């Protein structure tokens, strides 16, 4: 476009200013504080030494942190692998209209309304062998279940707790995606003689792509930052079996007051999430458009 056709008007910047201020105070300034900590060794409020990238280097060599990162990746991938298919299946089996639909929607959304620490407490009691329904039943069935003693049991309990808590979010998003498909698509599929699976594969799944992308990103980010529930349920144990990144970071920053390494790792943590979201987003974008290059050839 020819720029001379439009008069230049820079006044619009004033309209952006409020947003810039909000973002500055809510995101940029706090972030810069963290950046500030990450490059200094703060011995006391009066004494601080600039250390450059030393904390970053130290954090990268930290074996405990590698362990936490690895556990975190496994956990987040497990969360996605279980919650996304389960959420879709749930959405597909929910009634589409009438009072049943409303009732089921409320029922499904119920777990989303419970605060994180309450979820942890619920499962802590639920899994106990003496008074918990789950723990007691498993014990009675002859299964030696103990989320406080067995690392594998603890890991799976945290996973199942997250699935219980957050699959409804995926289901609601998928349900909204399904409802937005016009009836004509289903009618056309009936006319074309499509099987139930073909309807799912060629109509429902492609039409849910956008909402599923949101679901995957949300669930990935949230699970990657999980803190409260495992903290309440297992306290990160037994050993370090359920110590995920956030908890490790909190131990460093608040428990040991190692502000420098904690700040350095916070930034790395942030960049990891950003990078993985970027990769996930681009991968999912390309899923439905695999033939595009071909089309332009």
């Amino acid at each position, binding site marked *: 476009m020819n720029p001379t056709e439009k008069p230049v008007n820079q006044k619009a910047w004033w309209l952006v200013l409020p947003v810039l201020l909000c973002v500055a105070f809510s995101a940029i300034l706090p972030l810069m504080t963290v950046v500030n900590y990450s490059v200094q060794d703060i011995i006391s409020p009066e004494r601080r030494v600039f250390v450059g990238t030393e904390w970053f280097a130290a954090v990268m060599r930290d074996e405990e942190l590698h362990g936490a990162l690895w556990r975190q990746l496994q956990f987040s991938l497990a969360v996605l692998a279980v919650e996304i298919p389960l959420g879709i299946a749930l959405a597909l089996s929910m009634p589409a209209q009438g009072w049943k639909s409303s009732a089921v929607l409320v029922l499904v959304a119920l777990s989303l309304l419970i605060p994180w620490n309450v979820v942890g407490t619920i499962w802590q009691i639920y899994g106990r062998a003496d008074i918990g329904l789950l723990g007691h039943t498993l014990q009675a069935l002859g299964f030696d279940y103990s989320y406080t003693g067995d690392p594998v049991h603890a890991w799976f309990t945290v996973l199942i707790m997250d699935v219980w808590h957050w699959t409804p979010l995926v289901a609601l998003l998928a349900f909204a995606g399904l409802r937005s498909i*016009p009836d*004509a*698509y289903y*009618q*056309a599929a*009936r*006319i*074309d*003689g*499509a*099987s139930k699976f*073909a309807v799912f594969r*060629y*109509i429902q799944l*492609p*039409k849910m792509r956008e909402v599923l992308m949101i679901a995957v990103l949300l669930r990935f980010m949230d699970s990657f930052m999980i803190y409260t529930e495992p903290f309440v349920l297992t306290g990160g144990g037994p050993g370090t079996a359920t110590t995920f990144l956030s908890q490790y970071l909190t131990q460093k920053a608040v428990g040991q007051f190692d502000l420098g390494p904690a700040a350095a790792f916070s930034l790395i943590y942030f960049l990891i999430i950003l990078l993985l979201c970027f990769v996930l987003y681009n991968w999912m974008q390309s899923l*439905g*458009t695999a*033939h*595009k290059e*071909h*089309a332009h050839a």
Partner: protein
Amino acid sequence: MAQIELDLAHAYKPNPQVETDYALLPLKMSFRDGGAYALLGPSGCGKTTMLNIMSGLVVPSQGTVKFDGVDVTRSSPQERNIAQVFQFPVIYDTMTVAQNLAFPLKNRQVPADQIRKRVGQIAEMLDMSHQLDMRAAGLSADQKQKISLGRGLVRSDVSAVLFDEPLTVIDPHLKWQLRRKLKQIHHELKLTLIYVTHDQVEALTFADEVVVMTRGKAVQVGSAEALFERPAHTFVGHFIGSPGMNFLPAQAGGGVLTVQGQAVQVPQGLAVPEGALKLGIRPEYLQVSAVAEPGTLAAVVRQVQDVGTYQMVTCDAVGVVLKLRLTPQAQAPQVGAQVFLHVLGPHTCFYKNEELVA
């Protein structure tokens, strides 16, 4: 291919009591094998309901649907072997154009080489051969609708192909082209085609027989000529034609016709039914005289519009507005002038209770 017979009524809500509860009032109709039909009517007249009942997407609340004498009322679209094209393009986003066109065949386990051949033919017919490997999702709305049309036509053994206002999203110049294509396909493949539309030009140019519908009722089935010359119902007269038929309330008895208290002499040799009537005269057939003659009614010219291909003259006859069409070359009367309109002529139709009587 099949002869389709309908003897049914349909209401979307349970226990219909009054006429307005019905989407389709009780009707009997049959569609000949290999015919090209149009269902024509305004929005909400029940034409799409009728189409969906024929295709099996909707089960009628009472009555039967028969294909070649076999009751298929409760059969699925697949069992009926029906093809249907919808108003808005339905395409499978993740597939290419070729895969879209092949989908109905693939679902029916047609051998791959036959599919390829048939898809090639259809693509050529729709001028889409060069787009076969493109992703369907990236195309424009009318290209997508062409794919939908193609999916409707790709099976050559179907009982009928049903079109539900398929050209709504298509550009006008392409509309003509595609309609001609459909006509051509009809001649080549001898498929039964049923076409729903609210556009009379579309219906009249496409179909051998047009079913005119209003308020859940099929008021007339006939050729374009019959609908124009002898509308069976005042609605047909009003709906078909541009502008629609003129209607003039009148009272006939003893060889005299009275229109709003003004007597019109009945010309010799013209039989006029007795009693309260409505005269129906097409604007194309309304003749003007400068002097009073038998069969004429005095009127005042209110407006003369040159519409390009014809001139439209609006007159006021004893409080009733009558419109007439003149050729662009004809000498139009002056606005305000008194003229005499031949309301009783060979083309005049007579209606009682909105139904044609003579």
